[in-house]
């Protein structure tokens, strides 16, 4: 896995080079962030010719390692103005890795209004004109491309939102069921792809050779250890497959940290109607799939296929964050409506978290009433069609808050906040505030407390210990994101020591390395420093590592607390 393809959209030339120098030994987020840091001028316009879109599988992707099918997509973000790595599952990462591809770097900008596609196979990478695909939603687009190329081909694509270069535009990746339902949602990566005039990348790994393993015995032993941990742990073997990620709704609501009606309450009275348990019952009754493997090599199977009352497919991978953002956060307790919103966002190519945050802000402004599901759907259509109101919505929560004069706007570095209120879960507030990515739950989501020796009990309602916790989690997550592993491996990793040993063993077996746990932490630190450095050069300072002021002023029921971690402590997160 040492091929880098450069796709120059100005000259329409494709070139190939070998991984070398600063890029050696990196994958996933480590590689996207290093390329962006080295090659993208930090002050460039995010949708101008100097930005680059970097697409990389992780270090373990392409092997038989369980849950190794993650893809990292990086660039300077049109939403935050800083560095971005948006992480997505599906089928494409494994196919790229099997073709020996470490990275695809898309640079330059074509003649105005021209649209292209990129076909990647064992014969190399080739651009093709795609003006005929202009304006297509992801679902119709993928159907057409799979009919033309290969039914099993992995497709990485943008919908109309990306073509319109909206700041919340996502990049879709086909799931194992062939639908474009997995998304690199965060940070407007779809707008960058749209600015490059690239509508889709079709990845066909037919005829690819197996990924080479340096030490097969070590790899096999480590891989088995890893699989055993995933199969043993109740969350990865039972909770996630049965209820999906939405299993979290009950927990976070009960803990009083489930942001409701644009972050004005910590519990939603309609949670039972949209919880993981209810979703499981609805899908089962209608004959949909409560359990589904959305990503190649996944053995957790947290995905699902949501169907309507007649059993017809609506969407797949209906997720906790999506259900919260477009549900509780908008006062909506109608699961069918939320499933339709997810489908529309996947088709137009919108980030579902940013969309829900934005609709919440628009509802706060009175554009629609809280709880108005039809109104929310109408706003998404406006955005997808690019009407003047839709252009406001499509550019995110921060933009919409400004347009309508709203002060309660839940963003950090202009990125909408995910489904945990920082007043009830103070530690995640530290991550939202300080992450190089903007408000991002995944940046400090993977826990590895015993690996990182954090340990101990940190009260979510108190400021004590939150900075150290967030720091360690951000470091570990940066490393996991580089391995190409699903973040959910963190659940067994905390309880079962063999799980993390398995990860290190697989890396060593694959590459013939001698990594220890300390080396993995060092990799995480290196990545964060590279990202932080880019952001500084792009004009960010510690003053950007802050939550919006209402989190310090408005008390959140039921615990009636504000965000309590002092600014001086937030500034210590990157002291390592």
């Amino acid at each position: 896995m040492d091929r880098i393809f450069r796709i120059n959209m100005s000259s329409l030339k494709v070139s190939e080079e070998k991984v070398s120098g600063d890029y050696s030994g990196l994958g996933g987020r480590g590689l996207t962030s290093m390329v962006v840091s080295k090659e993208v001028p930090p002050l460039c316009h995010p949708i101008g010719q100097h930005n680059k879109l970097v697409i990389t599988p992780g270090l373990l992707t392409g092997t038989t390692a369980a849950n190794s099918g993650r893809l990292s997509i990086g660039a300077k973000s049109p939403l935050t103005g800083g560095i971005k790595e948006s992480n997505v599952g599906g089928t494409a990462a494994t196919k790229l890795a099997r073709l020996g591809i470490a990275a695809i770097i898309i640079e330059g900008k074509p003649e105005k209004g021209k649209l292209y596609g990129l076909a990647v196979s064992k014969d190399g990478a080739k651009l093709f004109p795609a003006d005929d695909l202009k304006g297509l939603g992801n679902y119709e687009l993928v159907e057409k491309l799979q009919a033309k190329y290969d039914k099993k081909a992995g497709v990485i694509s943008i919908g109309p939102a990306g073509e319109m270069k909206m700041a919340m535009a996502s990049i879709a990746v086909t799931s194992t069921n062939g639908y474009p339902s997995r998304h690199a949602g965060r940070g407007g990566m779809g707008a960058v792809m749209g600015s490059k005039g690239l509508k889709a990348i079709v990845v066909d790994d037919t005829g690819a050779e197996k990924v080479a393993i340096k030490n097969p015995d070590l790899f096999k032993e480590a891989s088995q250890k890893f699989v055993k941990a995933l199969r043993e742990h109740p969350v990865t073997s039972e909770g996630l497959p049965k209820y999906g990620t939405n299993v979290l709704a009950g927990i976070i609501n009960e803990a009083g940290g489930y942001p409701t009606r644009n972050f004005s309450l910590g519990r939603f009275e309609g949670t039972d109607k949209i919880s993981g348990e209810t979703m499981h019952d609805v899908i089962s009754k209608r004959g949909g799939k409560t359990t589904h493997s959305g990503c190649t090599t996944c053995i957790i199977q947290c995905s699902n296929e949501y169907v309507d009352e007649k059993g017809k497919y609506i969407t797949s991978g209906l997720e906790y964050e999506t259900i919260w953002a477009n549900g509780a956060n908008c006062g909506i307790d109608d699961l069918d409506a939320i499933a339709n919103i997810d489908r529309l966002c996947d088709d137009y190519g919108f980030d579902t978290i940013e969309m829900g945050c934005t609709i919440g802000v628009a509802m706060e402004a009175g554009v629609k009433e809280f709880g108005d599901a039809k109104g929310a759907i109408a706003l998404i259509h406006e955005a997808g069609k690019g009407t003047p109101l839709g252009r406001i919505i499509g550019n995110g929560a921060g933009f919409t808050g400004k347009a309508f004069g709203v002060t309660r706007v839940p963003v950090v570095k202009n990125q909408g906040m995910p489904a945990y209120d920082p007043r009830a879960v103070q530690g995640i507030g530290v991550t939202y505030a300080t992450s190089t990515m903007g408000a991002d739950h995944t940046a400090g989501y993977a826990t590895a407390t015993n690996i990182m020796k954090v340990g101990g009990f940190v009260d979510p309602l108190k400021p004590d210990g939150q900075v150290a916790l967030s720091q360690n989690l951000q470091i570990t997550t940066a490393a996991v994101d580089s391995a190409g592993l699903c973040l959910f491996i963190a659940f067994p990793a905390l309880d079962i020591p063999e799980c993390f040993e398995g990860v290190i063993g697989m890396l060593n077996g694959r590459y013939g390395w001698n990594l220890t746990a300390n080396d993995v932490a060092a990799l995480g630190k290196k990545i964060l420093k590279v990202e932080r450095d880019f952001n500084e050069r792009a004009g960010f300072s510690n003053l950007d590592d802050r939550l919006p002021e209402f989190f310090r002023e408005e008390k959140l029921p039921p615990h009636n607390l504000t965000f309590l971690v002092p600014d001086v402590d937030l500034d210590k997160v990157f002291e390592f």
Partner: protein
Amino acid sequence: MQITVKLHASLRPYERSNSRSGLFPLETSEKATVREVIRELGIPPEKVRMILVNGRGVDFESILSNGDRVALFPPEMAFNMYVAISFRRDLNH
């Protein structure tokens, strides 16, 4: 005294109402502990991995007060993740 109980996921079959939401009121003795409530409901203790009382993480020996809301979570829901870690007292060695 009276408390409110909320049962999640695979603990739902132990509920004392027909609401199917797992939410019901329960009469208990004064100063009852969480462990006593779990026993009273007939739930095997190993089926409870995380306990929230009024939205805060507690352990089995916590003493309850009138009006408390007790939420019980089974192992498959007891996320050891960044947010949930702060609620699971068994990590507090």
